[in-house]
């Protein structure tokens, strides 16, 4: 092949850039007014503010074949809408660890602050990203060169959970509440761990609390029919108590209408041993492993059904104008779904593990939840539901949020 022909067939990276209208877009315009040249590989999509840029747009960029994605906006303090970029920054602080666990090549995802006055910086950033991406080669999202052979990784044995306790006290408390009429129903478990609704004092005897009682009963509290029953008694292991705090902050429950019947003991801080072990794999290995996991996903949405935090009546997975998440059980659709499910739990998942237990395909969703729980802990000293009345992580921001990953 002649040198010219070779050049024409050489890889040209495709770069998608989501930029804010008031800073980076104007900075790009300024680069134009000053005739500062840069490679023609980037395609800009203008949005009013980085606050508008949802995490899914980054995933979408790779889905349509981008080799790198850039998100850029106003410097902190300069946001045209005062705080949109702070919200964006907070979101990315939590989203990046998720992408890392999934094995995304983080060298292909860039965040910058480029102001309207920084035409030169825009030129430099685009040039550097284009050349760096050219050197990396095509991203080939969800198509690994070695056919996606997953590494043989198994999680280490989980930490021992404390023995279930409090069954006797729970039964008598439930009986008491029902006989006095303080509640119209007690939601608890039967001997197999299946959810059980006790409506009369005698039924309280059948309520159990043993090793199989893991279902997150808070999931019933969002149902209209249950709420219509009036005051409810709830057998509440520590994870369920945490779930109540999160649901209360998000205006989903009326705490006055719920009488908690505490059972069990807290298993202490979340166990990150499995996550630590997984993160020792190289990114490509992680991605291959997840591809094998999500290949098995049949999109039954059991993970969503058992989770009390998934309470949206019209889930984003069911929205079809636009169809941000493909509903088909394809690899692409499954990745999009699980990324969204996991990220929507950022700062909200109470670690009950029900999604993982309920999954008929045995997908290790706990790894994703643990990723976000650890990010919340490390970056914000935050544990979902640990403190009643605590502000959520997403929807709030701090001027001190770390931005070492933002250029």
């Amino acid at each position, binding site marked *: 092949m002649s040198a010219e022909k070779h050049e024409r067939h050489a890889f040209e990276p495709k770069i998608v850039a989501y930029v804010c209208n008031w800073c980076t877009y104007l900075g790009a315009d300024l680069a134009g007014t000053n005739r500062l040249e840069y490679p023609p590989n980037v395609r800009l999509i203008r949005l009013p503010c980085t606050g508008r840029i949802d995490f899914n747009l980054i995933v979408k960029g790779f889905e349509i074949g981008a080799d790198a994605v850039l998100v850029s906006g106003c410097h902190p303090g300069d946001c045209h809408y005062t705080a949109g970029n702070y919200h964006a920054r907070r979101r990315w602080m939590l989203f990046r660890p998720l992408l890392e666990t999934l094995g995304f090549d983080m060298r292909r995802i860039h965040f910058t602050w480029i102001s309207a006055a920084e035409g030169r910086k825009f030129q430099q950033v685009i040039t550097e990203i284009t050349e760096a991406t050219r050197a990396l080669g095509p991203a080939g999202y969800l198509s690994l060169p070695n056919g996606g052979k997953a590494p043989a990784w198994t999680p280490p044995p989980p930490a021992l959970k404390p023995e279930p306790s409090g069954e006797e006290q729970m039964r008598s408390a439930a009986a008491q509440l029902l006989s006095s009429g303080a509640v119209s129903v007690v939601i608890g478990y039967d001997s197999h761990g299946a959810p059980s609704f006790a409506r009369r004092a005698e039924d309280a005897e059948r309520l159990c609390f043993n090793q199989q009682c893991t279902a997150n009963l808070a999931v019933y509290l969002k149902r209209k029919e249950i709420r219509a029953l009036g005051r409810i008694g709830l057998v509440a292991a520590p994870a369920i108590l945490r779930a109540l705090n999160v649901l209360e902050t998000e205006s989903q429950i009326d705490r006055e209408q719920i009488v908690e019947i505490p059972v069990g003991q807290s298993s202490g801080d979340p166990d990150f041993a499995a996550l630590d072990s997984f993160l020792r794999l190289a990114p490509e290995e992680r991605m291959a492993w997840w591809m094998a996991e999500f290949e098995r996903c049949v999109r039954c949405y059991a993970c969503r059904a058992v989770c009390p935090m998934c309470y*949206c009546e019209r889930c984003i997975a069911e929205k079809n104008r636009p169809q941000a998440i493909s509903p088909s059980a394809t690899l692409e659709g499954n990745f999009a779904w699980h990324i969204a499910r996991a990220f929507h739990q950022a700062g909200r998942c109470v670690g009950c593990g029900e999604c993982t237990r309920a999954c008929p395909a045995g997908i290790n969703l706990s790894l994703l939840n643990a990723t976000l729980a650890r990010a919340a802990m490390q970056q914000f000293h935050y544990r979902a539901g640990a403190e009643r009345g605590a502000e959520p992580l997403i929807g709030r921001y701090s001027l001190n949020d770390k931005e070492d990953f933002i250029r």
Partner: protein
Amino acid sequence: MARIGVFVCWCGENIARTVDVAQVAEQAARIPGVRCSLHYKYMCSDPGQAMVREKIAGERLTGVVVASCSPHMHLKTFRRAAAAAGLNPYLVELANIREQCSWVHHDRAAATAKALDIIRMTVEKCKRNHALEPIRVPVTRRALVIGGGVAGIQAALDIADAGYEVVLVEKEPSIGGKMAGLSETFPTLDCSQCILTPRMVEAGQHPRIKLHTYSEVESVDGFVGNFTVTIRNKARYVDIDKCTGCGECWNVCPWKKIPSEFDYGTGFRRAIYIPFPQAVPARPVIDKNHCVKLLKGACGLCAKKCPRDAIRFDDTDRIVEERVGAIVVATGYSLYSIGKEQADPKYRGYGEYGYGAFKDVIDGLQFERLVSASGPTAGELKRPSDGKTPKSVVFISCVGSRDNAKGISYCSKICCMYIAKHTMLYRHKVHDGEAHVFYMDIRAGGKSYDEFVRRAIEQDGAKYHRGRVSKIVEQDGKLIVRGADTLSGTPLTIEADMVVLATAMRPAPGIESLAQKLNIGYDEHGFLLESHPKLRPVETNTAGVFICGAAHGPKDIPESVAQASAAASKVAVLFANQELSREPEIAYINEQTCAACYACYRACPYHAIEKVQLKHKRAARVNPGLCMGCGTCVAVCPSKSADIEGFTEQQIYSMVEALA
């Protein structure tokens, strides 16, 4: 069925030199939904715009994409052209193939391919544009001005003279602010009260200005054009409608030694007092922290003496509600407190200057009162310690200002000028006195300002030393000022009878809490944030709230007055129509699918989201009067019930997918 018209501009040579515009137009015609596609040398020219209008009519276009310069340049131009042809202006989009394509690439093939991609993305977006109408919000054509200093008074007068009612709230018992306490002002040496008090009277008597003095803003609700403000009228214990201001009460009050706030502690007042003789309203107030009748039930002499029976010991605070359409914040400044102890740990004091310990070390405002004809010493400059006339006065500039070690990085702007003024006032009063100034730089940038400083030095004999002062010690009734003269490179010690410190200008205390009530921004020092430092200096990012004067940043009287008039003109623009017209590219929420998690409510930078109770559920709702269209709510919404016009989910996803 979409019928999009694509118009590719050559922009003379600017685009056509690099992008093959004919090819691009030809290929754009094949994009699904494109009805017509043409190219022309200057789309923004009259014939170019005529072409767009013709095609809209002739091809019954449902949308227009002009591939040309940046939307920041000509989006409005083409929207107007479309509107003239009967097409809703929000069905027009611009594809930027100039600033972001032809001007930054040289490879013709690559640039042409990129231009086509950009046009394809924009066509996909445009197919999903909604026809929008500007949002009409009713406007209450009354204004609130917070702060009755010179800036607040100016703004109030301008707005009232324009024909609108103004509510003027002032926390002190009288309007006038800091300027009422000054002696003479630079660069004219006008008597401050002589030029201010006529304005104060005008404001007090203006038929359209309603004064709430000795009052503070409690809360602000609502949005531009429709604010509801609650104001606390603090208890005066005097019925100001019955009172005539005759002064019998304060003349008979036995509690005479209360440090006067108006005199910054250099003089005294009574427990029932009027802050200064020219106060507006000229009515006294009782200080409940010192009045023995209020504290213990004894005395009550003022009530016995009052010929109008106007004293009300049973008075209480009153809460009043006012409805206004615009708010002007003119809360002014305070001086940085120089002592070692600081209320805010961000700042550090100057223990080394002895302020607070040495009676004769004072600040600029205290000096003003001591030389003021209506001051505690009737204009005779007397040392606070022994009442003697100081024969040597040292003025120190930049105390706090420009000093990162003290937490204040900025220049306070007015001190160089008022120090020069102080030296002149001193020398005019004490002909054999020595005035020494320790300075770092001289900032005298206004009209006749530099000449004024030169006059102080050359005519009035002020001695200027370039250097800072390291320490002041007291010795035998004198203040030993140890400084440096950097121009000669020697230490310089001066024995002074009095030292005046030019302390940094800070915003008034409580500004942060007021700013939060108004939902406006402020910087790390508390100065209020303008919308744009050059192009919108008196607007804030909250529609309907304007700022002026020293609350925005250190500035002198001419600038405060100019900003006040500027803010008033913005209010007048707002009030020019019965209804306010706002850009409709704002957020909206699908209440049926909304899960009422209120993430949007928490995240919205403008508090523009309300919680609403529908028949069978709760939901979030965007207030179209407040939403500024950032889209933060859209990104945080887990169910994607929130969306934003002009940048909808469908539009953005269609643009990304067009790149596949």
